[in-house]
C-alpha cells in the first residue's frame, strides 16, 4: 500500500479514537464545563471499550484478508472455519450451566470452544496437504462448514433447553455481539491472543501471495502446505476465539474490510493483511460509537446487529458487481 494511504488510515484512526471516547449518552465536551463523573466514564467505560473495538476490529480485518487469500476467494470470511460458532457454543454453555457467574468462565468456555474447533479442523483435514494445498483447502472449508452447522444446532438446542428466562435472555443478548460494559479485564484477555494471531497471519503473507498463482506454482515457489495450514488455523483461531470470548459474534467485518482496502493495495493477499487490520479497527470503533449514539429505547443497538445491517447490503452490492463481471 502506498504511504499516503497508510497515513490516511492512521489519521482517520487518530481522529476517530478521541471522538469515540467523547461520544455517548453522556457527551464529554473537553472545552465545555466539567461533566460530573467524566474521569470514571472515560477511564473505566469508554477507554476499555474503544481499546476492545480496536483489538477485535483489527483482528477480524486481518483474519478476513488472510482467509480470502487462503481460499483464493473474495467472498470468504473468518467465520468459514467454524471457529466462531463453536466458541459461541462454549460461551452459551457457560450461561446454561450457570458457570458464567464466575468472571473467567464465559471467555474461558469460549476459548475452549475455539481450541476444540481448531483441533477438529486439523484432525479432519490436517493431513490432506499431501495432495497439495488445493485439496486441503476444500476439505478445510467443508470441515469448517460442518463444525459451524453442528455448533449452530447445538447452540439452538441449549437455548431451547435453557433452565430459566434469565439464562435465556442472557444467552440471546450475548449472541448478538456487543462491547457494552466491557472492562480492562476483557482487553487484557483478548489483546494478547489477538496480537499473536495477527503476527501468525502476517507470517503467512508471503505464502498467501504465492498461492495467488495456484497450488502447484505456490509449492514450486517453496510454500510448505502444512506450515501454511498451521499458521492459518492458529492465526484465525486465536483472533476469532479471543473476539468471541469477549464480544460475542461480530460478523461481516472480516468480509467487508478487505474489499474496502484492496483497491488501495497492489492486490496481493500479503499486502492486504496490515491495512485490513487498521481499517477493521476503524470500522468497529466507528460502528460501536454509532451504536452508543443511536436513540433506541430499552438499551443500545447491539454491535453485531449494526454490523450485520451494514454488511448485508454490502454483500448484495458485491454479488451484483460479481454478476456484472460475469455477464
Amino acid at each position, binding site marked *: 500500500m502506498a504511504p499516503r494511504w497508510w497515513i490516511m488510515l492512521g489519521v482517520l484512526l487518530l481522529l476517530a479514537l478521541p471522538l469515540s471516547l467523547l461520544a455517548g449518552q453522556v457527551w464529554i465536551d473537553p472545552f465545555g464545563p466539567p461533566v460530573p463523573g467524566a474521569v470514571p466514564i472515560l477511564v473505566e467505560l469508554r477507554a476499555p471499550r474503544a481499546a476492545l473495538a480496536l483489538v477485535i476490529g483489527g483482528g477480524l480485518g486481518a483474519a478476513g484478508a488472510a482467509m480470502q487469500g487462503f481460499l483464493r476467494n473474495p467472498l470468504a470470511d473468518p467465520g468459514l472455519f467454524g471457529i466462531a460458532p463453536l466458541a459461541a457454543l462454549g460461551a452459551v454453555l457457560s450461561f446454561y450451566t450457570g458457570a458464567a457467574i464466575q468472571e473467567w468462565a464465559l471467555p474461558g468456555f469460549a476459548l475452549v470452544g475455539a481450541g476444540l474447533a481448531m483441533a477438529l479442523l486439523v484432525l479432519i483435514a490436517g493431513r490432506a496437504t499431501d495432495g497439495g494445498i488445493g485439496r486441503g483447502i476444500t476439505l478445510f472449508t467443508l470441515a469448517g462448514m460442518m463444525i459451524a452447522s453442528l455448533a449452530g444446532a447445538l447452540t439452538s438446542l441449549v437455548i431451547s433447553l435453557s433452565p430459566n428466562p434469565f439464562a435465556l435472555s442472557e444467552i440471546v443478548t450475548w449472541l448478538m455481539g456487543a462491547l457494552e460494559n466491557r472492562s480492562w479485564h476483557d482487553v487484557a484477555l483478548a489483546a494478547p491472543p489477538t496480537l499473536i494471531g495477527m503476527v501468525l497471519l502476517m507470517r503467512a503473507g508471503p505464502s498467501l501471495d504465492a498461492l495467488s498463482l495456484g497450488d*502447484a*506454482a505456490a509449492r514450486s515457489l517453496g510454500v510448505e502446505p502444512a506450515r501454511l495450514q498451521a499458521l492459518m488455523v492458529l492465526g484465525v483461531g486465536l483472533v476469532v476465539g479471543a473476539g468471541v470470548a469477549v464480544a460475542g459474534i461480530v460478523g461481516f467485518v472480516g468480509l467487508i474490510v478487505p474489499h474496502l482496502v484492496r483497491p488501495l493495495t497492489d492486490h496481493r493477499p500479503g499486502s492486504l493483511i496490515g491495512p485490513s487490520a487498521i481499517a477493521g479497527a476503524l470500522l468497529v470503533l466507528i460502528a460501536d460509537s454509532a451504536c452508543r449514539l443511536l436513540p433506541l429505547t430499552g438499551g443500545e443497538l447491539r454491535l453485531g446487529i449494526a454490523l450485520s445491517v451494514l454488511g448485508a447490503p454490502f454483500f448484495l452490492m458485491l454479488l451484483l458487481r460479481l454478476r456484472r463481471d460475469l455477464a
Partner: protein
Amino acid sequence: MLRAHALTVPGRLHGVDVALQRGRITAIVGPNGAGKSTLLSSLAGLTTGDVTLDDRALAAMAGRDRAQTIGFLPQGGDVAWNLSVATLVRLGRLPHRSTRATDDRAVAAALSDMALDALAARPVGTLSGGERARALLARVLAGEPGWVLADEPLANLDLAHARALLRHFRRLADAGKGVALVMHDLAQAMNHADHVVVLDKGRVAASGAPETTLDPALVARVWGIEAHWLGDHGARALACP
C-alpha cells in the same frame, strides 16, 4: 543434471527414467493422459518420488533451496487476484532472501526479456492470451532459476508468439540453463528441442534426439495416426493425411 529414477506415481507414472541436461531443451510429448504433466511436476519436486538434482535428492532439499534452483510454470496459470504484471512477476522472487535492489533488477530483467516493459502496470485481467503467457513465464524467469520447467507454455499462443517464446527458451538453454517443456505440437518438438522424451500410458515409449526418435513408426504406435515428416532438418512439418 535433473534425473528421475524409476519414478512411479500411482495411477500416473510407472518406472519412468529420465535425465535432463543443462544447456539443452528437452521436450516431453505424448498423448493426453500419458503422464507428461505428472512427470514435469515430479521433476519440479512437487510429488514424492525419486528425483535427483546433480545427485542430490530433491525430497531432501529445503523447499526454498529447491525453489531457487527450479522454476516451474504450471499448466493453465490462473491468477487469483487482479495483480499488476509487475507485482505478478515479482512473486518469482519469493524464494530469494535478496535485497530490494536485487529483486528490482531481476524483475526488470524478466519484464524486458519478455517484452513486457510497457505493460508492467497493467492488471493481469486485462492482458491478451499471449501477453498473459509471457507475464507468467516472466514470473518464473524473475527467480533466475537454473532450470526452467514449463507445462504447455505454448498452448493458446499464435504462431508469432509461440516462435518468440521458443526463441527465448533457446536463449535460456544457450545460457547454460536446463529447459524442459511439455508440448503437444510434434513439429515444434522436432524443430526446437535438443532432446525429446515420448511418454505413453505412464511409461517412456522412446527418448533421444528428435530426428531419430520421432519417426513415423513411433507416431503410429503412440498416437495411432499415420503421418510422415515433410521439409528439411530444422523446418519440419508433420503431414497427417
